[in-house]
């Protein structure tokens, strides 16, 4: 396409200048030839101009396509980076929020917990168990202190477990724990 354009451009200039300089205007057929070559030269120049314009427009379209592809790639990279950042943030939040992680770990069946390869979840579960043991020992200590002060069983259970005397299952459970703690201690 480019070769055609260059040939047509050269032909236009040649057909314009050579007949005008080489041929004699006073001779009839020379003059006719000049007219014909000038018409042909105009046609060649216009055709070459059209081809060059098409090539120029194609080049602009290619440049636009290239810019669009580059923008797409940049957008994709930034989106993936944003998503991975969000994932890291979520993982960090899960690690920093032990209550939620503990709840999730406890919600799993025993077999799943045993099979769970994540050590941090196991650690969080152990921490939770330790917390429960600490709470129990605090209750035992508090119950023993109150008992040493001469408080009654019902009053101690009301103070430490927050359960009033009666036949409710909560009271029975608290009573059983009270007995276990005080007799064990």
């Amino acid at each position, binding site marked *: 396409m480019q070769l055609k*354009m260059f040939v047509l*451009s050269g032909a*236009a*200039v040649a057909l*314009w*200048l050579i007949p*005008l*300089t080489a041929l004699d*205007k006073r001779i009839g057929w020379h*003059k006719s030839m*000049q*007219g014909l070559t*000038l*018409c042909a*030269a*105009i046609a060649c*120049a*216009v055709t*070459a*101009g*059209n*081809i*060059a*314009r098409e*090539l*120029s427009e194609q*080049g602009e379209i290619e440049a636009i396509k290239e810019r669009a592809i580059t923008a797409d790639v940049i957008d994709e990279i930034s989106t993936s980076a944003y998503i991975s950042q969000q994932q890291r943030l979520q993982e960090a939040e899960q690690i920093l929020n032990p209550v939620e992680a503990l709840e999730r770990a406890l919600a799993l069946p025993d077999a799943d917990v045993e099979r769970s390869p994540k050590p941090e979840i196991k650690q969080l579960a152990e921490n939770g168990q330790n917390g429960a043991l600490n709470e129990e020992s605090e209750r035992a200590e508090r119950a023993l202190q109150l008992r040493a002060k001469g408080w009654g069983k019902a009053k101690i259970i009301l103070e430490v477990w927050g359960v009033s005397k009666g036949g409710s299952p909560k009271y029975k459970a608290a009573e059983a724990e009270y007995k276990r703690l005080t007799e064990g201690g």
Partner: protein
Amino acid sequence: MRAMYLANYFVAGCIASSFLGWIASLHPIAFRAITFLASAAFTVWGLCWLLDFSVSSLLKISVSSLQAFLLALLAAGAIGAGVFLCS
């Protein structure tokens, strides 16, 4: 490539100007007609040059583009006529 197509159209303008000169050399009546046409075109060219802001807003192109086009037109006409007269 943009320069190539502008150059080709410029060359086409030069050749067209030479062709008008060739037509003018055919017969005295053709000469008068071409002279009238050339003078009218030159008048229009001068008006466009003077009223460049109005014409550019009418054609929806920038003033610099209009001035470049007018100068290229004048140069093509002068070169084409000069080539024909000197040959």
